[in-house]
């Protein structure tokens, strides 16, 4: 009896694992097969022409990185201290912490298009930033903040209380404890949050359509409109007949970019940690 259920369970687990892996592999192979012929150095640096049917994605790549930069430069300095406040300094069960946490959980579930409309109304028009990389980046920042704060908070909470106790007993100040012991020990969790946020920001299309616009020329400043990679893919696939091959190539670049940023983030954090903690 148990033998049989065990076997069935094993087969099922293998099956689901294989299914998930094969879907992923299928997507990657499809991308490679359709996109690789268009991929070249030229493609990465030249501007698109003929609505993207020919040329490359140079300005789009730059716009994407700028939007991501604005997003991270605003969300990390707000998100990490908020998470520290929630995890380390707010008293358990205090109404203020509970209020922030439940607001964040609601915000995390809000569809990105709603964030797009908000960004459009608030940043583009109310603050007069227009359709710009700045508006887009700030909108993405609002969008990833809940995710970033909650995962950073979880990372901080996973640090054993033993460390805090030890630090207190040694007469260390709160600041020293936080900076020297808690943050380094929580960094792996923080990095997961950061990578998830970056991935979500890079993949975002809807929120950016309303805020950063979709001009495909090279941006001259943060106040310029700029098209992100995901919008470019959407545009090529949906609005430009004959743009499929370029869409595939762009999707490959997007995935490669995600991988590079994720690997680089992990690497940099390990390097930073190396001087601080040793496990």
């Amino acid at each position, binding site marked *: 009896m148990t033998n049989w259920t065990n076997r069935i369970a094993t087969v099922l687990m293998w099956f689901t694992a294989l299914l998930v892996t094969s879907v992923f592999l299928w997507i990657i192979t499809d991308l490679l097969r359709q996109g690789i012929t268009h991929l070249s150095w030229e493609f990465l640096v030249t501007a698109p022409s003929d609505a993207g049917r020919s040329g490359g994605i140079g300005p789009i790549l730059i716009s994407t990185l700028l939007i991501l930069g604005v997003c991270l430069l605003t969300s990390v300095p707000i998100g990490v201290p908020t998470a520290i406040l929630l995890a380390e300094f707010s008293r358990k069960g205090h109404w203020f912490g509970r209020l922030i946490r439940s607001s964040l959980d609601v915000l995390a579930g809000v569809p990105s298009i709603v964030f797009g409309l908000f960004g459009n109304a608030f940043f583009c028009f109310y603050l007069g930033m227009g359709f710009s990389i700045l508006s887009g980046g700030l909108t993405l920042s609002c969008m990833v903040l809940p995710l970033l704060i909650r995962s950073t908070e979880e990372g901080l909470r996973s640090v054993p209380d033993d460390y805090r106790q030890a630090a207190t007993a040694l*007469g260390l100040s709160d600041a*020293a404890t936080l900076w020297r012991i808690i943050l380094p020990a929580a960094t792996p969790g923080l990095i997961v949050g950061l990578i998830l946020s970056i991935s979500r920001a890079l993949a975002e299309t809807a929120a950016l359509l309303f805020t950063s616009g979709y001009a495909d020329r090279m941006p001259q400043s943060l106040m310029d409109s700029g098209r992100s990679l995901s919008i470019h893919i959407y545009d090529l696939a949906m609005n430009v007949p004959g743009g499929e091959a370029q869409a595939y190539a762009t999707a490959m670049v997007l995935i490669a970019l995600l991988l590079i940023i994720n690997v680089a983030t992990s690497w940099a954090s390990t390097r930073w940690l190396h001087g601080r903690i040793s496990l």
Partner: protein
Amino acid sequence: MTTSPLITQTIRPWANREPCCKTQLPHITTTNLSVSYNGKLAIDHVNLPINRGCITTIIGPSGCGKSTFLSCLNRMTDLATHCKVSGSIAFNDTDITNPKINLIALRRQIGMNFQRPNPPPLSIQKNLTFPLKQHGIKRKADRVAKAQTILRRVGLWDEVKDRLQTPALRLSGGQQQRLCIARALVLSPEVLLLDEPCSALDPIASGVVEDLITSLRGQYTVVVVTHNLAQARRIADNVAMFWMLGQAGTIIEHSPVAPMFESPQNEITAAYLRGERG
């Protein structure tokens, strides 16, 4: 009170011990110390003088407030929310229950160690130099020298001298516990509080840590909470017995180790030491 034959037959480690803590001057004195968590009394009216340079062990069954008492002595109770402390704790003639007291300075003078060794994820050397840096010792060479002196003091030097830069978490449990004691000692405290320092260790490591604790006699005032009566007997100068009276723990008897184990005055203490209660 008749002395139990079991007690008289067992070894009397204090009989041929040098009286290191000759002065019977209290270093810390608690007066009517009570602690409650969320309004529920944990310890009630505890009065205990802790003599300078002596090893005072605190014995008693689980849950009768031994650790709570210990954590009052360097205000670790401040970490717990909804914890209320009343009464007074005189340390060098200062009442340390005063909310205005400098806690960082206090904890530098009264170090504490816990049941489970808890070195932060730093290298062995950094575990010792890092608190020094935070307490204002600017020159790295001074910090390293001090760390090495203290590693020799706790008998870890020969075991770790070739791997000072490796993670402290790779040490064995006993070594980690000695490193944690070293970490408390590196700040040159006057008092060391040890909360069941050997209960997470195997007998051999436990013996090494015990020897380290007895070697501190005379130089530091040491307060040890222990479940292990044999250990209390081996290391203590003075013993305080905690027991639940009503809803809260309190000290029912305290005295130097010899009279405590040879002729306890309290019925409950006698029964507990004979192994009949607790």
